[in-house]
């Protein structure tokens, strides 16, 4: 069974701090790794990573995949209170049903003013 482990489970930072979230995975026939942000409601898409070593950026958020280490990190710089959320990592396999995402438990980030 595919496995996704996120760390830490939770963290509390102050505005302006930098946060690094980790995701490691074990999946048969890896296709991509995805990051989602979940505030009160629906998980919203952040990044999709398919190639090792290529950083994806969106504003203060960035993410990179290391296929050799079977892991990914998500960085948030100059954190704001609006970054408080659960950050979910998921992997997508190559299979006959390639939308069967496997999720990690998530990292709860709390940003204090």
């Amino acid at each position, binding site marked *: 069974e595919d496995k996704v482990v996120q760390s830490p489970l939770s963290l509390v930072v102050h505005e302006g701090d930098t946060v690094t979230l980790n995701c490691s995975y074990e999946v048969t026939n890896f296709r991509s790794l995805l990051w989602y942000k979940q505030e009160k409601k*629906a998980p919203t898409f952040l990044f999709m990573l398919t190639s090792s070593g290529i950083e994806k950026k969106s504003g203060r958020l960035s993410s990179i995949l290391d296929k050799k280490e079977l892991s990914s990190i998500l960085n948030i710089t100059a954190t704001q209170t609006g970054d408080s959320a659960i950050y979910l990592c998921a992997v997508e396999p190559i299979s006959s049903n390639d939308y069967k995402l496997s999720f990690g438990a998530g990292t709860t980030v709390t940003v204090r003013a």
Partner: protein
Amino acid sequence: EAGVTQFPSHSVIEKGQTVTLRCDPISGHDNLYWYRRVMGKEIKFLLHFVKESKQDESGMPNNRFLAERTGGTYSTLKVQPAELEDSGVYFCASSQERVGQGLRTNEKLFFGSGTQLSVL
């Protein structure tokens, strides 16, 4: 563009009762998924529809769960009879991609806000 909508947002029922959750995917999305997150655990895949057909229901926990998607539009997920361990958040998601192509780089799986189910 309207997103994926789910109803109800919350449901509190007693053990043994029946509950039906509804999901309206984004218009035109053939692929519809149900996922759930039980307390303290990861979000887990339940099943996948392509239009009105069940593509994969390997994640359905047991035969107390029944999903339908009549006409290939909205979907319902019925739990009958509900048990305590069914409590959690049930998410629906939809996508336009064709099965076998994977999620394209710039395309995404769109999630609904979920239904929080509490079985007492």
